[in-house]
């Protein structure tokens, strides 16, 4: 599974993407965030305030309960400032 980070989150974690293989117990976006945070201190800090983190699974915006088991790409990013 490919994980993408954007903007301030990318800078905080000092990485734009990584390849991970979560255990089968990781079923949802929320589980995945818990698992990533448990494995990396910087991620744990960056994921502390989940209300300011948006998520996309395979280039579709989803909520924390969305399934991730069959996802190829999961992206995490701050609120968007387009236009």
């Amino acid at each position: 599974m490919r994980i993408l980070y954007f903007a301030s989150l990318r800078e905080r974690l000092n990485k734009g993407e990584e390849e991970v293989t979560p255990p089968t117990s990781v079923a949802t976006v929320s589980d995945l965030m818990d698992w990533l945070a448990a494995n990396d201190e910087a991620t744990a800090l960056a994921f502390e305030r989940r209300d300011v983190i948006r998520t996309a699974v395979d280039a579709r915006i989803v909520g924390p309960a969305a399934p991730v088991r069959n996802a190829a790409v999961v992206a995490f990013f701050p609120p968007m400032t387009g236009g």
Partner: protein
Amino acid sequence: MEVRVEETPFDPGAETNAFLARSASAGGAVTFTGLVRSGRDEPVSTLTLECYRDLALNQIGEIVAQAIERFALLDATVIHRFGTLRPGEPIVQVMTLAPHRQAAFSAAEFLMDYLKTDSPFWKKETAPGGKEHWVEARAEDDAARARWQQGQK
């Protein structure tokens, strides 16, 4: 409809002309162009837009499809840039075409309100001294988007 997310600069006038040239039987077209701002109080030397392009194409495509249905548009185009831009450079252009002007105006506003909050771009401003900061999402933009859901327009 057309959605473009690109790093290369675009010519706002040429884009408008091309859009109008395709609009054989319509009554009114509206073009909105968003430019990089640099105020006296907060001067900006560059604005860098980071983008998640695959998601941007999906999100903007959905927003444009919604606008076409809601305002019965005959056509709509959104062009959005990413990369490093200077003050005055076009960032975004929205063009709408409808049988009557009100739908074209409203749809352009709807598209811009949704692009602000729902399209995956992040803006970093660099001041003339080199100091950088990420532009925060604004509550006003959330409010502008929300009014379309409350049926106030």
